[in-house]
C-alpha cells in the first residue's frame, strides 16, 4: 500500500487526488480463517493489526455487523489518560498511552493524538485524598500525574471558574500531561488500513448469528448472515453487545449494557486547551480540532441497547459544565448522540480466555475504553496468539468475580473515565 506523506498529498493535489487507493477493501469472506475477530471497532481492528504485525498471523477476518468504527469507537469523546490507581489498571492503560505516542507513525495514519493534558478537578477533601492516592501510586509506578493548586489549574485551563463562591469550589486538580485526545475515526481507519495492508479481511455488514462449537466444546467458527465461517480461534471485541455474542457460546457474563450520551457544541475558535473532568459534578469537556466543545457524562440509569437516552442526562451534564465554565452558557449544543457501553461490577475490563477453548473476550470497558485501544488490542492479540494472557492483561480475568479478586477502580476512586 502506498505510503501517506506530505509528498504523496502534494503529488495527488496536482492530479485531482485521482490516485488514492481504497484504504481498505471489502472482500468476500473465505470459508475459514485462523482467527476471527467479532467487532471492527478500534480494539478489534487493532487486535487484528497486532496479530498480523507482531505474531505473524494474517489469515484473519474482522467481522462487523455495521460499518467499521461505527460502535463506541465512533461515538466516544476520545479521552486518553493512564493515571489509574491500581497497578493492574495503570499497567494496561499506560501500555496504551505509550503506544498512542507514535501510533500515527506506526500506522502511517495521522490519528491526531493530542497530548494536551487531562485535568481532573478536586472539589472537596475526599476528592483530594483520592487524587493524592492516585498521584502517589502513579509516581511509584512511573506514571506522570501531578497535583495542581486551584490557581495552577486555572493557569493550565483559563476558562475554569475557581472562585470560592462556586457551589462546589475547586480545591485542586490532578493533571496528567501526557493525557489528551485523539481523532476517533482515524484510529479505526488507521488500524483498518494497516491491517488490510497486511492481508486481514475486514468484512462489514456481516452479523454474527451464532458461535459454532466442536464436539469437544472448543470453538469451530461462527454463523453469519453471510454464511458459516470457520476458525479455531474467535475473539469477541464487541463493546455493548458482548453479552449477546457470548450467550451464543453459552457463556453468561458479568456485564450490563447502558446507554451513554455525549454532545458537541457549535464550533468556535480555540478556547479550551486541555481535557477537564470532574467526578463530583459529573462531567467532562474538551475542544476538538474542529472547534467543537466535546462534552459527556455518565450513563443513563437503565440497561439498554437503544443507543438513545434521556434529555435529563444531557441537561444535568450541561449544568455541571456551565458550573465549572460559566462563560459557556451562551454556547449552543449542536449535536448529541448515544452509544452502548458494557459495564462490569468492578468497572474494570475483561480481556481474557473464556471457559470455551479458542474463544476470547475483550469487553467491559464501560465508559472509558477508547483510551485503552492500542494497549488493549496489543495484549489481546498476544492472548489470542499464545492462548495465554500477556502479563499486562493477566489480572483482567473472567474468574475474578468468583474469587473476589476485583480491580475495583470505581470503589477506590469512583472516577468515571
Amino acid at each position, binding site marked *: 500500500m502506498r505510503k501517506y506523506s506530505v509528498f504523496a498529498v502534494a503529488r495527488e*493535489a496536482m492530479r485531482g487526488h485521482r490516485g488514492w487507493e481504497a484504504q481498505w477493501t471489502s472482500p468476500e469472506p473465505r470459508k475459514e480463517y485462523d482467527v476471527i475477530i467479532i467487532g471492527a471497532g478500534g480494539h478489534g481492528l487493532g487486535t487484528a493489526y497486532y496479530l498480523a504485525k507482531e505474531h505473524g498471523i494474517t489469515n484473519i477476518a474482522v467481522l462487523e455487523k455495521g460499518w467499521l468504527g461505527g460502535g463506541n469507537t465512533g461515538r466516544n469523546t476520545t479521552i486518553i489518560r493512564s493515571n489509574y490507581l491500581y497497578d493492574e489498571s495503570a499497567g494496561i492503560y499506560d501500555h496504551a498511552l505509550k503506544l498512542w505516542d507514535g501510533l500515527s507513525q506506526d500506522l502511517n495514519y*495521522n490519528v*491526531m493524538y493530542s497530548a494536551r493534558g487531562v485535568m481532573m478537578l478536586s472539589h472537596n477533601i475526599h476528592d483530594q*485524598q483520592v487524587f493524592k492516592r492516585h498521584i502517589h501510586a502513579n509516581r511509584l509506578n512511573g506514571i506522570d500525574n501531578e497535583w495542581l493548586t486551584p490557581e495552577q489549574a486555572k493557569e493550565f485551563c483559563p476558562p475554569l471558574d475557581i472562585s470560592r463562591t462556586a457551589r462546589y469550589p475547586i480545591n485542586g486538580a490532578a493533571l496528567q500531561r501526557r493525557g489528551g485526545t485523539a481523532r476517533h475515526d482515524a484510529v479505526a481507519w488507521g488500524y483498518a488500513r494497516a491491517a488490510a495492508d497486511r492481508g486481514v479481511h475486514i468484512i462489514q455488514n456481516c452479523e454474527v448469528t451464532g458461535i459454532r462449537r466442536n464436539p469437544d466444546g472448543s470453538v469451530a467458527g461462527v454463523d453469519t448472515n453471510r454464511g458459516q465461517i470457520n476458525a479455531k480461534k474467535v475473539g469477541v471485541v464487541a463493546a455493548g453487545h458482548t453479552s449477546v455474542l457470548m450467550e451464543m457460546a453459552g457463556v453468561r457474563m458479568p456485564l450490563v449494557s447502558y446507554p451513554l450520551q455525549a454532545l458537541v457544541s457549535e464550533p468556535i475558535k480555540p478556547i479550551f486547551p486541555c481535557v477537564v473532568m470532574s467526578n463530583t459534578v459529573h462531567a467532562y469537556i474538551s475542544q476538538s480540532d474542529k472547534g467543537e466543545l466535546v462534552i459527556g457524562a455518565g450513563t443513563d440509569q437503565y440497561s439498554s441497547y437503544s443507543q438513545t437516552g434521556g434529555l435529563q442526562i444531557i441537561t444535568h451534564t450541561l449544568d*455541571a459544565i456551565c458550573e465549572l465554565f460559566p462563560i459557556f452558557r451562551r454556547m449552543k449544543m449542536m449535536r448529541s448522540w448515544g452509544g452502548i457501553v458494557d459495564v462490569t461490577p468492578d468497572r474494570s475490563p475483561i480481556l481474557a480466555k473464556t471457559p470455551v477453548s479458542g474463544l476470547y473476550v475483550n469487553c467491559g470497558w464501560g465508559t472509558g475504553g477508547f483510551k485503552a485501544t492500542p494497549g488493549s488490542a496489543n495484549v489481546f492479540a498476544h492472548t489470542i496468539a499464545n492462548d495465554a494472557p500477556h502479563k499486562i492483561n493477566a489480572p483482567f480475568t473472567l474468574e475474578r468475580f468468583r474469587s473476589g479478586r476485583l480491580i475495583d477502580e470505581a470503589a477506590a476512586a469512583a472516577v468515571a473515565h
Partner: protein
Amino acid sequence: MSGANRIPGAGRLTPAKTARFFFDGKSFAALEGDTVASVLLANGVHLVGRSFKYHRPRGIVSAGAEEPNALIGVERDAARKQPNVRATVQDVFDGMKVISQNRWPSLAFDVGAVNNLLAPFFAAGFYYKTFMWPKQAWKHVYEPQIRAAAGLGVSPTEDDTDHYSSRYAHCDVLVIGAGVAGLSAALAAAKTGARVIICDEQPEVGGALHYDKSVTIDGQDGYAWAQATAANLAKMDNVTVLPRTTAFGYYAQNFVGLNERVTEHLAKPDKKLPRERLWQVRAKRVIIATGAIERHMVFANNDRPGIMLASAARTFLNHFGVAVGKKVGVYTANDSAYEAAFDLKRAGITIAAIVDSREQPGEAVLAEARSLGIDVLAGHAVVDTGGKLRVSSMSVARNGGGGARKIAIDALLMSAGWTPSVHMFSQSRGKVAYDAETQRFLPGTYAQDCLSVGACNGTNDLQATIEESLAAGELMSNASGFTASQKLALQGANAFAWTGGMAGAAEGAGPDTTVKAFIDFQNDVCAKDIRLAVREGMHSIEHIKRFTTNGMATDQGKLSNIHGLAIAAETLGREIPKVGLTTFRAPYTPVTFGTLINHSRGELFDPTRKTPMHALEEAQGAVFEDVGQWKRAWYYPRAGEDMHQAVNRECKTVRDVAGIFDASTLGKIEVVGPDAAEFLNLIYTNSWDTLKPGRCRYGIMLREDGFVYDDGVVGRMAEDRFHVTTTTGGAARVMNHMEDYLQTEFPHLNVWLTSATEQWAVIAVQGPKAREIIEPLVEGIDLSNEAFPHMSVREGKVCGVPTRLFRMSFTGETGFEVNVPADFGPAVWAAISERTEALGGCAYGTEAMHILRAEKGYIIVGQDTDGTVTPDDASLGWAVGKKKADFVGIRGLRRPDLVADGRKQLVGLLTKDPAVVLEEGAQIVANPNQPLPMTMIGHVTSAYWSENCGRSIALALVAGGKAKIGQTLYVPMPDKTIAVEVSDMVFFDKEGGRING
C-alpha cells in the same frame, strides 16, 4: 428608507417602526420584524461570512433555520455575546451589534482566503495522511495550526448575565410546526376540546405562507388566515400557541423538548423575562407538520454571495419587501423556482433567465413564464459563475456540453426540489422509506404515537394537506377521548402545482475532480470530495460523512445530506436507499446551553444543605467544608489563628475540658415494628436481639459481596423501635439499601423504615466536662455513670424540649449526643455552647473530630475503607456475629480472595520523626530503594498532627499489616523517603478508661 432594495408596497413589515443596528461597525436602518439577513439584503449586502476551510466569501443562502453560510456574532454587551447566529433567523433590534466571523483582518479582505488557493492540497481527509513527520512537529506546529484554522465564531469570555427558565407541560396533542398543515391540525384538535400545544420556530405562524402569496384559504389571504387562526387558537383555554419555539428533540414516549426564544428579538427586554425557556412536553399524541426544506443546485462555484434558494428570495420579497438583486438568474430542476421569478418580475426586477436542467418543465409555469416574458432555457445547466465578493455572472450551457455563454446577473436563485423535514419523525425512531419516484425519504414505519402531515409527509397539494391535517387533528384527539361535534372543512387554493426536483450533482458540477461544486457550504464539502471518499473505500454513508465532514456543520446537513447521499449512490452505482441515510440526531437546530440548564446554576445547581445550627456556627466563626450536599463546620478559627492552630486548640480543648460538635448531618433512620430487631440482624453483621431498650451498639453493614458499606451507632428506643444512624454521605443509599431488602427479600417482616435525618438536630458534647455541661439543662434523665453508662440512650428533656439523649463517643471521651427536634436545635446549641464556653470548652469542627477519632483508632467508612475492605481488614471482625446464620454479605465474605492471606489490613503508622505528618493517599513500600515501578504494599488513609499525642499519627491499609506491627516501612515522597513504624490503631488512652468517665 431602510435599504435601497426595498420594494415599495411589497412585504408585510411596517415602515413606521424602525430600528438601527451595526454590522462590522457599519450602521444600518431596519424595520421592526426584519431579520439581520433581510436588512443586509435590503442594503445590497450579500457578503456576510467566510467558509470554514477555504475561507471563501459567502452570502445568504436561505431565509430560515437551514442557513449554512450567514453565521454572525451578536453582541448585546461584553457578557452577552453569541457566536454562530444564523442571520436569517435573528430578528434585528435597535442598537444591536453584529460581527462577521472566521475572517481576518476583515470580511472583504481575509488573509485566510489563501486556503482557497491551496485547496488542491486540502482534499477531504488530507490531514490523516500527513503532518506525521517529524513527530514532534505535530504537537508544536501542525496541531496548533489546524486548531487555529478550525472553528467559526468566538466563544463568550464572560459569565452570561441573562437567565433562562423551564417548564414541564402535558397535552393531548402537540403540533410541531404552524404552517397550513400544523394550523389546520391544531384547529381540528382544539375544537374537540383536547389540550393542544402548537409551536413554530418562526416569529409568526404561517410557514410557507411567508413566501407563497398566492395561497388563499376559504377565500382569505393565506398569511392573514394563518395569523387569524393562531390568534383564535391562542384565545382558547385548551390551547397554547408558541411562536419562536423550536421543537428540537423527540425523545422516548412522546417527550419533546421545545426551545422558546422569549426576548432575543427585543432591544430592551424586561429583566424578569427569561432569555429563553425550555419546554419539556409530554404529549399523548404528536402531529409533525414541519414542512419541507428547499435544496440548492450542486454546480461549479455555486457558493458565491448572491446565490440563494429560490424560496428564500420569495420570502425576502413577499415578507420583508426586499429584492435580492436587480438582475436575477434562476437555476432549477423544479417548478417552484419559477414562482420566485414571477414574483420578482412582477415587482419590477429583471429576470435574466430561468435555466432549467429539465428538458420539459411543468407546463403551467412555462406558460406563465412566457406570458411574463421571462426567458426559459430548458435542458440547460449553469456550469460556472463569476464574481468575487458577489456573483456577477452565470455561464450557461446546453446539457451534455457545448459552448457556454455568460449571462450577467447580480443574484442567482436555485432549487433542486424539496426535502421533507423528517427530522422529528426520525428522532422519534420512526423508519423513513424512500420514494424512488419523487426521490424523497418519507415517514415509513412509526415507532411512537405521532403522525406526519403536509409537506413533511410528502403531501404537496394544498387542499390535500389541509384535509390530511384536519383529519389528523381530530384523530389524534380521539386517543384522549375527545371527539369533534362537527367536521371542520377548509378550502385552500394556490397558483401552481409543482413537479420536478433532483438530488445530487447537477450538470454544472461536472465529473471533474477539481470543480468546486458545493454540497455542504459551511464545511466546504464539494461533490468531488464525496467521490474521493468513495474512491478511498468509504462505502458506508457514515464513513463518507465523517471522512468529508458533509452534514456535520451547524446546519447539520439540512441542505447537504440528500445531495451527498445521491452523489455517493451514483459513484457507488447503488440505489440511494441501499447506501442509507445518516441518523437524524437532536437537536434539530442548535440549543443554547443556558436554556438546557435553565434554573440549575449557582445556588440552584445543586441543593446546598445546611444544618439547623448553621447560622450560629457561622456567627461563631466556623469555616465550612462540603460533604456531599451538606455544608459542615470544618473548624472555628479565632482571631489570629490559622487552620492548624485552630484545630490543635480544638483537639486539646476537647480532651482537657470538653467540646461541642454539630453532628446533625449523620443519617438517621427510624426502624419500627415487632420484627425490627430481626430485620437489623439481617442488615448488619452484628446481633441485635440481645440489645436491651435504652442501650446502643455500633453496627457494620456490608454489601452482599462482603465489603464494608456503612457503619453507625444504633439505639434501641423500645422493643419495637430502633434509632439507626448512618454516615453523612451514606444516609440516602443506606435507606434505599434497607428498603430494597425489606421490600424485596424480607417482605414477611413487620417493620417500617422512616428517614429521620432532618427531624433531629444533633449536638455532640464530648470531653471530661461533658456531663457537667449538660447536667443543668437536662430533665428526667439520671446522667450518672451507673444509671446512664457508655452506649446508652434515654428520652427526656433538654432545655425544656424533648430529647433523645445518647451516651456515646466518637472521641474516646465521656460523651453525649443530644438529639432534639430540629427547630429547637439553635436554641439548645446556644444553651450548651454557652455552658461549654463558660467551663473552658469550645466548639469543634469536622477536622478536629477526624483527628480525635483517629487518636482512638476509630475508622471512617469511605476514608479508611474504600469499598474493597472487609470487617476483618478494618479490625472490626469482632462486630461480625459468628453464630449468625444469615446477614447481607455473609456469603460474599467467604469468597477465596476475601479470606486469603496478605490482604490489606488497617493498622497504625508512626513516623520515625514524630514531627513529620504523612500525606493522606501516600503509598507505602517495604524497600524504598527499588527501581520504578515499585511494589506498593499499602497506602495512608488518614494522617494528622495530634496535639494530644504530641506527634503525628496515621492509619494505613497495609498488606498483611497486622503481622507487620513493629516493623519499619517506608513512604517514598517526591523529595524524600519517610520511615514509619507499623503500630496498632490506638494512639491515645490505649486503656480506654476516659470514655467511662
